[in-house]
């Protein structure tokens, strides 16, 4: 990200320096145009094949009643979109996904920041703490989900056992409509925490020591003052990046749901990607599934655009 910022900065500086007389360019030779096409060609072809064509295909399929495997299909206009927004299951899954993201994103960002600050301020065993916090991100979530299932088991699980021992209420965490989504969100936070932490640690490392020295001289030498004067503002660009990336990852939640709850009980833990998977690959309603994909794509692309825009505007730290 830093490189991108630097490049952007340089590019704008370079633009400002352009001499107006430079507009009068010598006429380009035809060879140059050929070379340009040849150089940009492979990337264009790949982009077309791997991104633009599939997206176009999805949008096209979303406008039909195609069932996966059948030979006939009919154009149905926006009927699929009307269908999904009238479908209680889809609306529940969209709402659940938003709730999930709104727990996981702040939880991960604040937790990751807190862990990064703690590790950075502590003297010993930094590498050890960094490693153990990063492990969940590296581990295969499918395998870890089984561990979580055992921990959350209503009768023999460690969680209920511990809660009962210290007098807290117990629950059937994954089978209760009230708890299933928050519990999945906690697992989501646990999984992404290490990722956010590593990015924040990198951000903390890049803050020049001089700024802390200046803050000491200026009198901002208490922990909170240093945090507010130097650390948090300097982490701004990293934090923005972490927020967007974690939000995107949270929107993509699928494996824990598929392994632990399959969207249940009822639709209480149904999320976008799981609904999409079920409609497309279990019920084989390709047109319907494609419409859900389009909704998902709109959300993902919007987030990415917001990120690009904000980073453009907010990074002025050179």
């Amino acid at each position: 990200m830093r490189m991108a910022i630097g490049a952007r900065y340089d590019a704008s500086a370079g633009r400002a320096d352009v001499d107006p007389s430079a507009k009068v360019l010598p006429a380009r030779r035809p060879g140059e145009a050929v070379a340009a096409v040849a150089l940009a060609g492979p990337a264009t072809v790949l982009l077309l094949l791997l991104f633009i064509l599939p997206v176009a295909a999805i949008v096209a399929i979303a406008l039909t009643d195609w069932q996966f495997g059948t030979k006939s299909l009919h154009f149905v206009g926006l009927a699929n979109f009307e269908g999904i927004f009238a479908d209680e299951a889809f609306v529940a899954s969209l709402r659940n996904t938003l709730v999930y993201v709104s727990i996981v994103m702040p939880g991960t960002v604040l937790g990751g920041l807190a862990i990064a600050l703690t590790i950075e301020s502590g003297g010993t065993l930094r590498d050890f703490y960094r490693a153990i916090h990063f492990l969940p991100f590296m581990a295969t979530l499918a395998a870890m989900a089984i561990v979580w299932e055992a921990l959350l088991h209503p009768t023999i699980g460690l969680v209920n056992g511990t809660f009962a021992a210290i007098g807290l209420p117990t629950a059937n965490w994954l089978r209760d409509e009230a708890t299933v989504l928050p519990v999945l969100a906690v697992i989501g936070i646990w999984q992404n925490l290490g990722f956010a932490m590593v990015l924040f640690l990198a951000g903390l490392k890049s803050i020049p020591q001089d700024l802390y020295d200046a803050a000491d001289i200026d009198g901002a030498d208490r922990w909170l003052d240093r945090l507010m004067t130097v650390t948090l503002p300097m982490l701004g660009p990293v934090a923005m990046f972490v927020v967007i990336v974690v939000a995107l990852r949270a929107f993509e939640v699928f494996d824990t749901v598929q392994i632990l709850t399959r969207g249940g009980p009822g639709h209480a833990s149904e999320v976008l990607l799981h609904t999409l998977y079920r409609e497309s690959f279990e019920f084989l309603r390709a047109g319907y599934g494609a419409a859900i994909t389009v909704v998902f794509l709109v959300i993902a692309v919007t987030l990415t655009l917001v990120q690009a825009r904000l980073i453009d505007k907010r990074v002025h730290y050179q």
Partner: protein
Amino acid sequence: MAAISLHGLSKHYGGNPVLDAVSLDIEDGEFLTLLGPSGCGKSTLLRIIAGLEAQDTGSVAIGGLAVDGLRPKQRDVAMVFQSYALYPHMTVAANMALPLKMRRLTPLQRLPVVGRLLAGTKAEIRQIEEDVRRTAAVLEIEHVLGRKPGELSGGQRQRVAVGRAMVRRPSVFLMDEPLSNLDAKLRVTMRAEIKELHRRLGVTFVYVTHDQAEAMTLSDRVAVMLDGKLRQVGRPLEIYADPAERRVAEFIGSPKITMIEARVGDGGRIHVGGRGLAIETGQQPDTAIVLGIRPEAFTPVAAGGQGELLAGRVRLVEHLGSDLYVHFDAEGQAEPVIARLDAERAPHVAAGERIHLAVRAERVLLFAPEGQRIRTCADQRAAGAVVDTRVAARRGYAR
């Protein structure tokens, strides 16, 4: 009043000594420069004075009070960093206001919205803004108060850094190579401005640099540091004309001083190769001795002429308008020698030709092979003259 007194300061980093028993008294209102090559410990010394680092042994007193163990903000010092260390997310005005806010507002009053509602905050903030504006006016940076550091030129950033240090009227200014990030032309301008700032504020300045020109032009006194030790403290001219040891003589002065191995002969004369030089050394005959000859102490003579000391083939001639720098391979010397000659009076020399040079005996500095200075009778007379000029200079300074 803020005289600074350093006593027996030592500092190690992981077993490597960085400062070795440094003691120094800096007068109130003095401009003292710590001069030395990179890695000599001068920045560490400055950071210890500021309170950013703790010494292993020794003590620091500012204004007669021991400040060991006090945090930087309790020491009433301000510092300008080499990188300027401006807060990039704040405007220039906010950068300059920060030290005042930290001192004049309570933690509650500094809270973003709530603080403004507390009694007295608004009046205090208005006063801070007024102080910032006044300082900015002095430094002629009023027009950039609303901008962020990233939008400023190097010179403007430098002024903002000075402004942030100045705004709360500290009794000591610490500057860590503040000009080294500027281009050569701007450096000369800013040098003059710093000198003017010191004259106007009248507070103690401690200035760290590796640039002799800055040290020579700015300072009341220069403290030369080498390998973590304070080698010599004195007025700029004194350091140049009367260095305490060989390494100080070699560090100060550009082009570098020429060092020639010689032996003391009969009657106090000195033998260099086959030639002699009449200097009263006060040393036993046949002692090894080192002659230090500044480039401007050479005078051209005819081949075999009176007083000829060195001769050799010219490698390079540099014309600097008023002066000529002649680089030549002197016979019997391992390293090339540089002589600085008066361009109008020097004979025409070109690369490849031979040149013959005499040396003014009274300008020769004598050193023992181990590096200590050996003072001759003539030196002691000259030292007296330096003291006279110092008194005169101080009178001029006071006026």
